[in-house]
């Protein structure tokens, strides 16, 4: 059963995302060729490794993830070879609180 589960991959969550880490992870899954965003995924991995069991992100880590997310968002909106996503589509599953923090980060950046 594990072989079949691995063959079909993990289905993307349809739940509302409240964490920047979830937002980045789900958004990364939309890339048609993961090699194109490999450097970004490396940075996500290094942040994910230091997230405590509670899942609470430090402000610095959340900011770093927002930066990565915005780079992924730009890639998916402009450079993905098979689909041009819209900002609204990509942010549709983010919770209101997460969106507010993301937009606040965007204004500062």
């Amino acid at each position, binding site marked *: 059963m594990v072989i079949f589960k691995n063959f079909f*991959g993990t289905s993307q969550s349809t739940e509302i995302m409240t964490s920047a880490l979830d937002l980045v992870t789900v958004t990364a899954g939309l890339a*048609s*060729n*993961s090699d194109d965003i490999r450097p970004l995924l490396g940075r996500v991995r290094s942040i994910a490794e230091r997230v405590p069991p509670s899942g609470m992100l430090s402000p610095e880590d959340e900011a770093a993830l927002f930066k990565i997310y915005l780079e992924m968002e730009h890639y998916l909106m402009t450079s993905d070879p*098979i*689909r041009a996503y819209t900002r609204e589509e990509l942010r*549709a599953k983010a919770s209101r609180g997460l969106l507010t923090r993301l937009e606040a980060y965007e204004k500062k950046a």
Partner: protein
Amino acid sequence: MRTVNKITLAIILLTIVIYLVSFLVPLPQSWQGSYDEFHWALANSALYAMLHIGAAILFLSAVNAYKVQLRAAYMTIALGVVLVGVGLAHVVFLNIFGLLQSPWVQYGGVLFPFLGAGLTMYFGTRSMARLVDVSSAFARVGIVFPVGVVSVVAASLIPHAPAVIPELSYDFSNAINVWNVILYAASLGIVLRIKSRIGMHYTASMAWLAIGLIGSVIITTYVLIGSLFVGQTPEGRVLELLVISGGCLYFLAGYSFAKTKEL
């Protein structure tokens, strides 16, 4: 209810209706067998066609979310799936309506849908691989086509049971089957390579397309080996079940791809 689920339900309901209506078709005068044999054959061929056409509809229902190049690749794949189903169904129609001695069959015209299916499936998956910048030996025509030619020549040398149709038509039929085994297998190799690179959102749809192609390889190999033993395309429950299963797998692939439209 999500749009993809509505479309899928509509196709399933239509398939059931067509399947049941097949049992009401009057027996043609040319039919030699029993009443039940005719209707089961007709209903099953309608099922083959609807499963494959339904799969193509599902593939096409999602393409407008994607860029032009992927739309073209998936439309090509969908055409291949339709040609498989329609090709299989029309062979059964030819049989039950007493047209197996027609020039269309005797001179190999009946094989054109199958030839088309293998080629469109291969070139469709190859286009997709190029689009997402995935390289594969299976996508190289310079490798796959010579392997196909060598396999066709090798298969023609295998001893077989006396052919029921003219020998040239039999050899041509076997050549197309061998060719298609190679093309479906190459398409499978390409899809597995794409699946290993593509984002999680698309993994399941690639997995189901790969399984559909495995089904096509198995069915075509079965027909090829069977024809070596009986001198014609094998008939019977095993082939019916394989074809219906193959249709279901492509249907699942179409459904899975249609779901990728919605985030």
